[in-house]
């Protein structure tokens, strides 16, 4: 699912949890359950990929004008 790529990690996790709960409730029609399962596994993978790909988001600092600039954490002063 292309739209899964747009999901935030939290949304993906939330959806995954919802799906798991639905499935665990066990009153899902089988076809639906298989759909859920596939979607769930995709979400699980998505979550994992997001967690594994350690692309550090850049830390930014807001300057006087309210614009964002890259921010390097300085060491102890």
């Amino acid at each position, binding site marked *: 699912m292309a739209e899964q790529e747009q999901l935030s990690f939290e949304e993906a996790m939330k959806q995954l949890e919802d799906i798991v709960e639905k499935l665990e409730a066990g009153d899902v029609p089988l076809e639906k359950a298989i759909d859920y399962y596939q979607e769930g596994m995709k979400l699980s993978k998505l979550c994992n990929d997001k*967690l594994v790909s350690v692309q550090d*988001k850049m830390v*930014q600092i807001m300057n006087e004008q309210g614009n964002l600039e890259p921010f390097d954490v300085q060491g102890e002063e």
Partner: protein
Amino acid sequence: MSEQRYLTVAALTKYLKRKMELDPHLRNVWLRGEISNFKLHSRGHMYLTIKDDEARMQAVMFAGNNKNLAFMPENGMNVLVRGEVNVFESYGQYQLYIKEMEPDGIGALYMAFEQLKEKLEKKGMFEARYKKPIPSIPNRIGVITSPTGAAVRDILTTISRRFPLVETVVLPVLVQGPNAPESIVQAIEKANDLGSFDVLIVGRGGGSIEELWSFNEEAVAEAIFNSRIPIISAVGHETDTTISDFVADLRAPTPTGAAELAVPSRIELMERSGELGRRLQRALGNLHTENSKMLKRLMASYAFRYPEQLITQKDQQLDAAVDRLALAFKNKLDKSRNDLRQIDVRLMQQHPERQLQSAESDRKALAKDLRQAMQRLMDKKQSELGLQIEKLSLLNPLEIMKRGFSVPYGADGEIIRSVRQVEQGERISVKLADGQAECQVLETKEDING
């Protein structure tokens, strides 16, 4: 007295005022006493009486001086004040113009802290119902602290260690000094205006009570309370508690702690998402098992045994039909028999006596005719026979014998036709028409011309 020059009240008052203003001791008075009659004027000035067991003195603390007062003076409070004694001309009253005030015994800041805490608590600002939930996995975090020092570094390193996916924006503020509260309030408001933050961390590293004081300011507390974005407060060390901590949605013991509360651990999340994946597998497995069971149940159920049921049913129906057929047949048979009996009865009632009789008489007549015809035939044959007998009797040898012919028979009973059949002396019988004569051959003579 007439030569005496009289002063105006105002002039004397002015004179006294000048006297006091010239006395360096009165310019800078350090005084210890208890507050009574305290009144905060709407315009910001404070009016009060400073007293001890033996005396009292009017005092005023103008807004300009009391604006930096950390605590709110109260009646009965023992205070240490510094100020100058001067005359309030319109009333002709000397009073103490207070420049500085501190609680006597405990620190002013502690007093102020307790007072503000009590005030905000009364307002209900610490109540749990106002606490906003902290999102479990934020996308964007605002860090409101000093851009230099350990706090910001601890927060940022902890965030990137635990959960590098989050976007972090530092909103730099002054965290101590007179301009710090304003700076912090503005940053909180700015973050709320931008509205793109999921959570804010507001705080600073450790320090003295004075250094941490901004976070005990009412304005800062208000800003934290009014923030629509959930706020985690992280001021100083674990032992430091500020008003900000009370109004924040979540209090962290340290800046590092705040970062830990703000973002989940990547490792834990991986475990959780893995666990969810496993639960997913299990759930589907269970579902599969359940469905298999259900399928089995269904297969065993009436619906699936239905064809079989149908057969057995049809079978039974067939039996029933056969039974019914037999019964119907029997009934039919019985009925037919019954009908037959009835017809018989009716037939008997319809007995053909007359036909029988007429047939019998026909038969008798025919028999009679037969006999008569037979008789006629017999008679005819009889007469024919008589005729034949008559003809025959004409040929009868006896008749011939009557005309004088006889027939010799040998001893052997054979008719003797030739002389060669008899010898001399042989006894022979000669049949005559009316009997026989026993004779003896005397001689045989054969005819020559035979």
